[in-house]
């Protein structure tokens, strides 16, 4: 399962053109990058790509009514969080002269089925996001981005834990 999750986040990142050194960090392969402005920009790009993907998934689920009615409020909340994460990191990137990756025109989200099947897809992207931020956070050099990334990671854990609970998976 952990391997499948890692492969999932790597697939998203690869498709979006995340640099190999950051892919290496997500894969847990050694000291691929030092700390510095260049690394911050690479981490920002990778994080923005994942946020774009999460927003696309929640958009599809909300638009097509794939979330169970009683859980829709969580989906709206979590989508809003991902939009906030994306906007925060786009602003940080642009402030530093970066060109943050834009959302793709189409996302291959696989078969979209309502109910638990879709909740499992939402859980997958949340776990991927959580694992990516956890893997990358120690490479961030600047204090304000590190602080933002820390609070973003807190959000991702909340999302993941709520979906795990809803799906009857262990949360403690």
């Amino acid at each position, binding site marked *: 399962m952990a391997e499948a999750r890692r492969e999932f986040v790597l697939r998203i990142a690869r498709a979006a053109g995340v640099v190999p050194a950051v892919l290496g960090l997500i894969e847990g392969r050694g000291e691929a990058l030092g*700390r510095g402005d260049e690394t911050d920009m690479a981490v920002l790009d990778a994080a923005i790509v994942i946020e774009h993907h999460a927003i696309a998934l929640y958009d599809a689920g909300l638009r097509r009514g794939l979330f169970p009615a009683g859980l829709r409020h969580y989906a709206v*909340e979590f989508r809003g*969080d991902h*939009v*906030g*994460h994306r*906007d*925060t990191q786009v*602003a*940080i990137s642009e402030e530093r002269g970066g060109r943050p990756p834009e959302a793709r025109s189409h996302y291959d989200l696989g078969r979209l089925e309502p109910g638990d099947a879709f909740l499992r897809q939402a859980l997958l992207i949340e776990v991927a996001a*959580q694992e990516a931020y*956890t893997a990358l*956070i*120690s*490479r*961030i050099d600047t*204090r*304000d981005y*590190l*602080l*933002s990334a*820390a*609070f*973003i*990671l*807190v*959000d991702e*854990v*909340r999302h*993941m*834990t*709520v979906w795990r*609970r809803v799906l009857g998976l262990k*949360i*403690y």
Partner: protein
Amino acid sequence: MPIIVSTLSARALASTGRRLFLRGAAAAPLALLAGPAALRATDYASASDVLDAIDRREADVDGRLVAIARAVAGVEAFAGSVRADHARHRAQRHRLRRRLKLSAFAPPPPPASPDLSLATLREAQQQLVHAHAEGLPALGDAGAVDLLAHHMVDASRHLTVIDLWIEAEETRG
């Protein structure tokens, strides 16, 4: 006192967990809000300050959870799981202190008769999460950031469990 409390840039906290925490706390009728202090972040001056704050807040959560588990049936499994995570975190922080050549810190004992409300437990847990998140920029050591980020993931999960617990209690009326 080396710990400075400052107002962070709007960008640093906008759209992140801090906003969620504030919204979550406001939505919970039992929550004791920290008032204006909740809008400010602690700007830690050193790794030692961060680790001391985490030790203090973790002991506070432990004390409250032990008391609640004694008083409320069915809480022991969660309380035991949290305590086990905390014991592991403490041991890892102890090793981190040694590696960074920082002195040990003995947190004050938790109050003998702590408030047993979920709202105050949540507030204590939130402060523990914030101590991790706000502490990361002060660590100045990639290994320390990596370790405390992993601990923060556990602490955030515990906070969400408490949130879900509060929601369940509210639904039950």
